[in-house]
């Protein structure tokens, strides 16, 4: 019953999607407005059916309806309810349904909110949405059916991959998918602008907030993924440059570039072709990301099973890339005739540099990700490209970006005079240099971390100096106390101060990464009960092993008492979890986090023969907590930038 409801809903939605593609085309051909209205109806209809299908699958998961193959493979009777729900995105077919659901929610929202606006653009926007939706629905209907039945009905299911049984399963995939799918919105508007020929700034102004929101979810999704890797996978790291991590990060780079360069287009009407290319690139990378996880062409911890789905995604990717750039080429004549850059030292050029750096980083990461495949195709040699390559090339690029973050918001448009540069940057630069020299004197000598801290100080100081000047000016004009003046400033310049807060968040993340990458220490030892291990200021005493039976697995915990220079901190219990379906155990690391550093304990193994012996690996990673704090600050900054403090004037859309 559930399967029938679910599958037929998908098929009906697919039919509506087909109509959603045809209707705007017919409307354009015949000029009859009714077609455009019915395109909107097609989107809303798809929303209804896809929601029904999603709820059907969730229902089947929650009630453990094992007649559905997907439910049988991803839940067991013992799985707690919240993990049954996350089973919706735990494997290939369900994840496609989630993607489609988020897509159609966005489409429906846009169709409804803009039902009376942008009459030249909206029909094409809806066509693009229906097109993408049709693809995902078609894949589910014909190649990868979430409602496939299994006969005979098994008595119990296989269960979710144990690594996925974690609280982050509730947040990381939905956040990331919202970010990915959110990028479809500016893409659809960009395509609509190209198709309709209406290539002024309207499409950018309309979609700016949606793009910022999508960018925000993508940022948060990546950070939560890093957090998950850090506290669950038990290797003490938060980013491995795994192909699928890269696939989630790559769309973020052109999206960030886009957020900055559209400011140039808004103000100076430059870079139209470039901005269109950026958004096509960002959207294509989201499709590439789904292709990567589902095609099996690269080995990764995230990879879903392969099958015909890979080929279908490749085909769709080809259509998107070639079709979009084809449209761009077709309209190239309307995109010419733009103002030139006035001066090398100006905000335009700084933003351009920002774009160049981001695209260079993107190219580097993309090359590193597909290189194994390239080397195998060309030379027949299997290689793997790992962290050393990425870290070495990406670090200087991102530090250049940090420098630009300090310069960009303050430097003048068009042409920055020497006097202007002196007034704005001499103070922060001098102080940042002072910070560097004092750190150098304090024996922090390593090149990259020192540079990172210096540049971070520079950025923080430019923001501080500029805000102080603005507050002083405000109070000189309108009087009032400091907090009120600051609040008014922010309220009147949301984008600017929201941006400042986001940049501060990035600076904190950079500090966290510099500290943990530059100064982590680790030790590994085999300990008898009562023996201790020393690292840094800490002393860790092994007190014994404890085995227990949990609902879904057997667990062996090690008790380790931690003291800091004689002062007792507590007991940490890293564990190894033995799942019946997995040949080897899954580790559960435990760590103690302060703003200064993280103490990370991993139970590598224990002796089955000699009861009192365990292998412990311990890491001390400085400043990691600042990465998560920085993420929270970025969230705050985005909210400041986006929050509708006052109703926007109609024209400002």
């Amino acid at each position, binding site marked *: 019953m559930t399967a029938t409801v679910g599958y037929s809903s998908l098929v009906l939605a697919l039919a509506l999607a087909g109509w959603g593609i045809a209707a705007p085309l017919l409307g354009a051909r015949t000029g009859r407005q009714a077609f455009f209205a019915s395109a909107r109806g097609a989107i809303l209809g798809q929303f209804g059916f896809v929601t029904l299908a999603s709820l059907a699958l969730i229902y089947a998961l929650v009630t453990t309806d094992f007649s559905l193959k997907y439910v049988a493979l991803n839940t067991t009777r013992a799985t707690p309810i919240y993990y049954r729900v996350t089973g919706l995105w735990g494997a290939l077919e369900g994840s496609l349904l989630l993607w489609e659901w988020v897509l159609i929610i966005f489409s429906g929202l846009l169709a409804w909110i803009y039902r009376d606006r942008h009459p030249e653009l909206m029909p094409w926007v809806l066509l693009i949405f229906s097109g993408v939706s049709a693809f995902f629905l078609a894949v589910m209907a014909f190649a990868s059916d979430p409602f496939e039945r299994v006969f005979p009905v098994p008595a119990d299911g296989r269960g979710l991959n144990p690594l996925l049984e974690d609280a982050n399963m509730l947040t990381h995939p939905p956040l990331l998918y919202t970010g990915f799918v959110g990028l479809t919105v500016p893409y659809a508007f960009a395509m609509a602008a190209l198709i309709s020929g209406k290539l002024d700034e309207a499409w950018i102004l309309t979609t700016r907030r949606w793009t910022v929101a999508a960018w925000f979810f993508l940022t948060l999704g990546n950070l939560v993924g890093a957090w998950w890797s850090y506290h669950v996978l038990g290797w003490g790291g938060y980013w491995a440059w795994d192909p699928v991590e890269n696939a989630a990060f790559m769309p973020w780079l052109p999206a960030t570039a886009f957020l900055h360069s559209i400011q140039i287009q808004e103000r100076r009407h430059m870079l139209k072709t470039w901005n269109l290319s950026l958004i096509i690139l960002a959207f294509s990378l989201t499709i590439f990301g789904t292709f990567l996880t589902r095609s099996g062409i690269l080995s990764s911890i995230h990879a879903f099973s392969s099958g015909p789905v*890979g080929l279908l995604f490749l085909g769709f990717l080809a259509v998107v890339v*070639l079709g979009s750039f084809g449209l761009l080429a077709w309209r190239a004549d309307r995109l010419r005739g733009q103002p030139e850059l006035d001066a090398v030292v100006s905000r335009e050029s700084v933003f351009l540099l920002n774009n160049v750096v981001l695209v260079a980083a993107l190219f580097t990461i993309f090359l590193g990700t597909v290189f194994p*495949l390239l080397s195998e195709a060309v030379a027949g040699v299997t290689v793997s490209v790992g962290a050393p390559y990425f870290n070495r090339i990406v670090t200087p690029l991102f530090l250049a970006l940090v420098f630009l973050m300090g310069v960009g918001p303050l430097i003048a448009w068009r042409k920055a005079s020497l006097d202007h540069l002196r007034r704005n940057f001499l103070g922060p630069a001098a102080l940042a240099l002072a910070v560097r020299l004092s750190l150098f004197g304090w024996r922090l000598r390593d090149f990259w971390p020192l540079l990172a801290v210096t540049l971070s100080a520079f950025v923080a100081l430019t923001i501080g100096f500029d805000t102080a000047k603005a507050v002083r000016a405000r109070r000189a004009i309108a009087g009032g106390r400091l907090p009120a003046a600051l609040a008014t400033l922010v309220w009147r310049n949301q984008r600017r101060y929201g941006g400042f807060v986001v940049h501060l968040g990035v600076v904190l993340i950079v500090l966290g990464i510099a500290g943990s990458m530059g100064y982590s220490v680790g030790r590994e030892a085999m300990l008898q009960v009562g023996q201790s291990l020393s690292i840094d200021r800490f002393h860790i005493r092994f007190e014994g092993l404890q085995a227990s039976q949990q609902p879904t697995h057997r667990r062996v915990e090690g008790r380790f008492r931690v003291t800091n220079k004689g002062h007792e901190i507590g007991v940490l219990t890293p564990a190894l979890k033995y799942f019946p379906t997995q040949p080897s155990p899954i580790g559960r690391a435990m760590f103690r986090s302060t703003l200064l550093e993280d103490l990370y304990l991993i139970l590598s193994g224990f002796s089955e023969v000699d009861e009192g012996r365990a292998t412990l690996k311990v890491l001390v990673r400085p400043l990691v907590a600042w990465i998560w704090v920085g993420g929270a600050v970025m969230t705050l900054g985005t909210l400041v930038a986006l929050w509708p403090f006052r109703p926007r004037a109609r024209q400002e859309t």
Partner: protein
Amino acid sequence: MRILLAVGGPALALLGLFAYGLTRDPRAIPTPLIGKPATPFTLPLFDGRQLSLEELRGKVVFLNFWASWCPRCRAEARTLEAAWQKYQAQDVVFLGVNIQDREEAARAFLQEFGITYPNGRDTAGKIAIAYGVWGLPETFILDREGRITYKHIGALGWTTITTKLGEALQGIVSTEEGKGEYLQVR
């Protein structure tokens, strides 16, 4: 037009690369060991003896890595035993190495399939690491001088076993390693 060429060219090349990628298995790691001398080791056997690889010099060795929970190992078990029965008299030794497994389960496996050739447990996993075992089952065939002449990952069939053992008895080194259905363990 220039845009289309500038973008379309590289895009098509990349798409072609990905299409090619769909035909490859990213997890397959080719071995550099074929033609090289086999790493010596000492294996504690299930019957209590210790067997070292040097003792078997002068005979062809059929070295098979397995685990009781691996379905393809189960699939090939009876074939291996039959091959052992056939080649016993011909200067060939079959040696099984049990990895990533519990002892009772391994013994139960040997009993279930009536395996009579020597088997031992690689408790620390060192032998598997020395031979670069990354999937199960994996089989190495060593010639009389202790050189690795063939590696096969996945379940073995009768034809392959007899062909490759025949080659090894004559000291022929294979040009390619073999691949069947396997379970990745690393």
